[in-house]
């Protein structure tokens, strides 16, 4: 931003006294045209909280609530950063759940399931099979 005009000025104004450009005034431009509100990943984080079973989803929801609060306070950069973190935690949650399911299937196939599952299998065999 600051150095945008410098190269041209230096090339053209050889020998003249170079006055430094005025410092960029950021606040008014930001207030005039606020950036688009980033997606807050709220429903996605709720979905992973429900389905992925690992409380990473809660972290995602906390960041999702921050996105809108920051945005309406005018802290657009923080809002964007919270949106990125909400997104990150949604994907961490999905990844962890996928990993867990794969691990579970491997344990199932190799017969290393935890004890309580064997109880269910036994009950099932003695009771009603379908």
């Amino acid at each position: 931003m600051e150095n945008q005009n410098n190269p041209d000025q230096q090339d053209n104004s050889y020998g003249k006294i170079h006055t430094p450009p005025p410092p960029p005034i950021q606040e008014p431009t930001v207030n005039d045209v606020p950036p688009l509100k980033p997606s807050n990943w709220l429903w996605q984080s709720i979905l992973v909280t429900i389905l992925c079973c690992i409380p990473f989803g809660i972290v995602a929801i906390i960041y999702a609530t921050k996105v809108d609060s920051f945005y309406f306070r005018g802290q657009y950069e923080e809002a964007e950063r919270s949106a990125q973190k909400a997104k990150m935690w949604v994907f961490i949650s999905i990844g962890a759940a996928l990993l867990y399911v794969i691990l579970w299937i491997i344990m199932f196939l190799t017969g290393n399931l935890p004890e309580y599952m064997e109880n269910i299998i036994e009950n099932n065999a003695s009771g009603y099979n379908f």
Partner: protein
Amino acid sequence: MHKGVKIGIGAAIILLIIAALYIFYTFNPEMQPLFPKCPFLLATGYECPGCGSQRAIHSLLHFNVGAALRYNAFMVLALPYIFLGIYQEYLGGKKRHPKIGKFFFGRWSAIAILLIIVAFWVGRNLI
């Protein structure tokens, strides 16, 4: 992202969802050891906000809403909300009903949902 890649990812996700729904319809998670148990419950002995979702989905697919509510009431009540979110984001709902989006996915609703989830989490372990 390239448009073809996006469509491919979407198609793969839809196929996965259909396959998962078929599995959840055919097998009962309460009887089958194939369904993974919640790691949070295994580790701590307390239920997380998502515990019971698999059984609830199975019950819902068999139109047994009462049982689904008993397994995980929050999930059943959150499903319409999630469908609304999908509609808003992918099916053009944002342009057609911007006010609905602002109301349900805005600042206060996000905080309200966080409070509801925490309350549900604590409550289901106390009762």
